[in-house]
């Protein structure tokens, strides 16, 4: 059944770290790739520095916008201390992407683009064209932030390639 081909990605961190922005970009990539996509997170109180987790699901047909515990294919954790809070969403053998993945990043990485750098790492695990990632990054950020974030994205991809 078509529903079984859905890819589930959770982006987690703290309010103010660009968690929602990162999931917006990911959802937009899937959208631009012509897939069905749904994205869900809780706003409100979480904006005051609390834990935030955003679910992105894409594939031929997506029904529920929420990812079931233990069924995420990938988990991005922007804040290292949010690892334990979110680890349970990952399926056995799922891909965990954390700031540790950026330890050997080539060049200097700005703190405020860690979210996009982690998307760079994630992109190496997903079957979505790099050009579409770059389009989506540009479409979701103000022009003055394009250069920095496209670099961060490339750095994330490079760091993942080194580890592989």
């Amino acid at each position, binding site marked *: 059944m078509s529903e079984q081909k859905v890819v589930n990605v959770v982006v987690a961190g703290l309010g103010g770290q660009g968690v929602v922005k990162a999931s917006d970009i990911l959802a*937009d990539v899937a959208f631009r790739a012509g897939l069905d996509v749904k*994205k869900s997170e*809780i706003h409100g*109180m*979480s904006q005051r520095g*609390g834990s935030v987790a955003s679910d992105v699901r894409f594939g031929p047909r997506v029904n529920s916008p*929420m990812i079931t515990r233990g069924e995420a294919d990938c988990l991005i954790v922007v804040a290292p201390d949010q690892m334990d809070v979110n680890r349970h969403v990952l399926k056995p053998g799922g891909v965990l992407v954390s700031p540790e993945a950026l330890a050997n990043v080539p060049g200097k990485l700005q703190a405020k683009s860690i979210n996009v750098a982690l998307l760079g790492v994630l992109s190496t695990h997903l079957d979505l064209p790099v050009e579409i990632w770059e389009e989506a990054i540009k479409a979701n950020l103000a022009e003055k932030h394009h250069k920095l974030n496209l670099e961060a994205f490339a750095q994330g991809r490079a760091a993942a390639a080194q580890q592989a």
Partner: protein
Amino acid sequence: MAKILSERMLLSGDEAVALAALNAGVLLGTGYPGTPSTEILEAFGQLGGKAQWAPNEKVALEVGLGAAFAGARALVTMKHVGVNVAADVLFTAAYTGVTGGLLLISADDPGMASSQNEQDNRNYARAAGVIMLEPADSQQAYDFTGAGFAISEQFGLPVILRMTTRVCHSKSIVVPHPLVRGAAPTFKRDIPARVMIPAHARPAHRRLRDKLARAAVFAESCAQTLVEPRGKALGIITSGITAMHARDAAPDASILQLGLSYPLPINAIRDFVASVERCLVIEEGDPILVTELLAAGLKIEGKSERFRFGELNVDRVRRIIAGDESEEAKAPPGKPPMLCEGCSHRPVFETLRDMNCIVAGDIGCYTLGVLPPFSAMDTCVCMGASITVGLGLRHVLPFEEAKRVVSVIGDSTFVHSGLTGLAEMVYNPPATGHVLLILDNGTTAMTGQQEHAGTGRDLMHGASHKINFEEVCRAMGLKQVVTVDPMAGDGSLEAAITTALASGELAVIVARRPCILAAPKIRQYDKAAAEKLLARNAACSAAVVD
């Protein structure tokens, strides 16, 4: 307003409602900010629609009703608890009916991501007698909004579009089809329908029930009554987001999604029940559908009581189907939200904590004053209750305790529901006096920095009239009204509270300092307004010279 059509868009449910309202020719959008509904009016305004914040939900629905009496389409948005405030309007608007389409968005918050209760507003459709639509994703939010205006006009009834947090804030794909637009407004006198004296209201009640009976017939075959037949072993009757969870949880089940969930299409439901071997009613929140369908004599099963609490999700729907009553795994607690570093509420709650005050609190960011390291809030119930609950405490507590009671309200909440509390305060003053702190940070901060009648700016942040809180308090009869900067750090805040508490009289302290998140934007808005004024004056002078 230009219609906005495109092949395919990725929108939140809130954005989809706004786009549909624009394409359906809505002439007025009004409401009060409240998670998860806030973004609807903001998006409607950004798309070019006429959108405005009302001081509260009752006012918003009244303004919307007036527009609908005039034959215009009106969109009124609020969170679930806002409908309580607007309920007085809603129940009699069901009697009067409407000429132009009136769509009330009720954004419910099962699981209470950002609310004080998880009331199920499907109950309001039944209690007031109005039609209810429940979209399950952004495409349905778009389609049902368009249909909602047409249905409202067809039956001459307000329609509630009930959304939930997961429908409002989730993004999914929308193909925005063209929608039929409303007619141009014109006043047509109809005194028996719109002047609800008892002699008019008695037949109006009967008319309402007739309309609902016709709406029930319509529901039987309308585009919102959605059957997805698959296997015969299991059928699921559901509504809203739960339809999506059910599809994932039971890929082989047949599903009846009640997109128009009141009045119920009972024959369509009966046929569906008969088409499957086992039929489950799976609904988020209160056991409403299951109770009504059991009363209709249908052979269906519901969920157990534990699933009344919190949101449903795919895992919980699987459990309901399997009758699995085992313990559900709890997610580890995340980091709770807190008042921002540099937030002007911080020194206020530090002071109230250190002075051992009994604090009647209210709804807003400052409710976070209840958490450590402040732990300086003793009550928080509903919008405006800080003033009045504080008065109740003062009236009955022994002297030594009564004189420690302080009410704390934010600026937007004060405009929403504080003025009547202030009237109570001056009219029925407690023997020990009372102290009201208005925390004026110049914005509706909690919901994402919306304007209100006390900021001097309209929904789109342009200049508007600004209500002066100090003048309002003095005009209502308060003798002691002082203004302090809570961030001054010179002891003036502490001194003001000490003086007010010691006076034994009624006192208002306005603690004014812009929200640290909003301050840069507020400076921009003020600058833009000043430049606009300057340009207009220059144009006027030029015109005079010409």
